[in-house]
């Protein structure tokens, strides 16, 4: 599904040029469950941003289902994120003014779905993550684990090809974190490609493939 070749990302910070990714090549097949690990500054977040279409590489190729994503325009990237990618963030990133249902509807608003279809789909997704009784609640009326489940429901709204999760359990206690991981595993078993960025060994062990980063390079790529 994904082929990246010689992917390089450099930033200019003042006088210095920082290389966040240094010629990374790898491919990801449909249905994989991958953990990307490494210390902070290793380049794993940069890779995730590029995979998710939030950032462009300085050099190299990023092919997604045959499309050269590195050459996409801003609007094409926006649509790519909207249709192909589901994001789950460490800090949930729910809009505080909107109800759980409205938060889940958001990606479908930008894809132009009809209001009624949108609401039905959002309700169905919230049922699936076990929040059927809390659809009208605002984020501040939900626990951390519940908020992350709303965020996961939102990431699934437009039936993405790839779920990208950045430290999804980082803000949760361990029991809740295990529940959320179980949800990812369930989604993966249903066929969804899941990529989790983490520095938590336990989270990484739950994935079937582990890619380790250091100084912008892949140092380990193993299937467990």
């Amino acid at each position: 599904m994904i082929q990246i070749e010689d992917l390089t990302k450099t930033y200019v910070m003042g006088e210095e040029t920082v290389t966040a990714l240094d010629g990374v090549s790898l491919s990801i097949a449909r249905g994989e469950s991958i953990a990307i690990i490494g210390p902070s500054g290793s380049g794993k977040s940069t890779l995730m941003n590029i995979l998710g279409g939030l950032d462009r590489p300085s050099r190299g190729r990023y092919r997604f289902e045959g499309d050269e994503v590195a050459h996409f325009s801003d609007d094409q990237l926006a649509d790519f994120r909207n249709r192909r990618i589901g994001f789950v963030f460490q800090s949930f990133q729910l809009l505080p003014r909107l109800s759980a249902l409205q938060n889940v509807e958001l990606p479908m608003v930008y894809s132009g779905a009809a209001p009624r279809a949108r609401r039905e789909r959002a309700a169905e997704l919230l049922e699936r993550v076990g929040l059927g009784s809390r659809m009208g609640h605002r984020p501040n009326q939900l626990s951390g684990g519940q908020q992350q489940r709303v965020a996961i429901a939102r990431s699934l709204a437009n039936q993405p090809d790839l779920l990208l999760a950045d430290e999804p359990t980082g803000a949760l206690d361990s029991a809740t974190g295990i529940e959320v991981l179980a949800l990812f595993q369930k989604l993966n078993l249903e066929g969804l490609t899941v990529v989790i960025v983490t520095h938590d060994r336990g989270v990484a062990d739950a994935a079937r493939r582990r890619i380790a980063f250091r100084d912008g390079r892949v140092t380990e790529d193993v299937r467990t």
Partner: protein
Amino acid sequence: MSGASPTEIVRFASGAIIAHPLRSGLTSLGVVIGVAAVVMMTSIGLGAQKRVTDSISGLGSNLIIVSPLQPRTPGGVMGGAGSGQSLTDADTEAIQRQVEGAAAVAPSVTGGAQVTADGANWNTSIIGVTPEYLEARDLTIASGRMFEDRDARQGRKVAVLGPTVVTQLWGDADPIGKRIRIRGAPFEVIGVLGSKGQSSFGRDQDDLILSPLETVRSRIIGRRIKADSVQTIYVKAASEGELASVQEDIDSVVRAEHKIQPGEEDDFQTQNLASILEASKAAIGAFTVLLAAIAAVSLVVGGVGIMNIMLVAVTERTREIGLRMALGARRKDVLAQFALEAVVLSLFGGLIGLAIGLLGAAGIAAIGDWPFALPTWAIPVALGFSSLVGLVFGAYPAWRAARLDPIEALRRE
């Protein structure tokens, strides 16, 4: 591929406004004041125009006013109307003899004096006229009689009083036959004029005394003017259609009388009510535009307030913007959301301002006994302008929001 529908963008924009009612209200206040001021000024200006139109038409119909004009001095300075003394009885006679279509020709001189009677006193205008004055100015006699040519020729000291003068001197008593003293000279009251009420500028049109021309010239104004000089000649045209031709005829007759050569400037001027009306309307119109322009400055100030708050909102909601972009919002969706938020704030202010402005104008009209003019075009213009203000001042903050880097924005605390 279809993006977010306009309805959804409007919903996002209004959602943010409703979330902070106090802040949104205060932000709109600038536009409220601006629009209210513009609407009020325009409405008052239109009311004034209407009032002036009504009152000038009330001066007398088909009236032409001939007044002296100080010729330009070598320095090029021109005296105001009435400052010269170029008109004389000869001009009056020439107009009476030669201008066809002149239904009434009424020369006049005006002086001010203190009037005393039975211990009371009052300051008023004494106008020296001939009997034709009544017809020329559309005046009526309420009681008694108007003086006749005979009275004038004999230089009799008779007076016809305006109702205000009667009230001031005697209250309700009947003044006919009573004596008054004007500058010490005794006059007999022979008649009282019908009331004309107040003029548009609040001047009491009933506060005057009419007396024969000759009498006023010699007794009241005295040596300040030449013995045969008149200040204003009122000419009433027989019909509205003859107004222009009568005015032209008067011009040529008086020019001939004054021996003005072709190419030389006139030492008098003729005005008909239509031209006076036009001039006053133009003057009030210019004044109204000026007032509205000053008021429009506050609209700009309101726009700056909106821009300020929108810049704050973009900073506050950086993470929201980043998230929306991550979820698939295009840059133009973000741009539209923030620009619309500014437009809705401004348009909301415009609606409230329009209501306040119209209510204010109606209130002032009621208190000041002023005709209320509803400027119908002001409604779309006020709303259009306030939307424009929102768009102009919301454009930069919205552009800043749309230009944010989603990764940076998501990381912002």
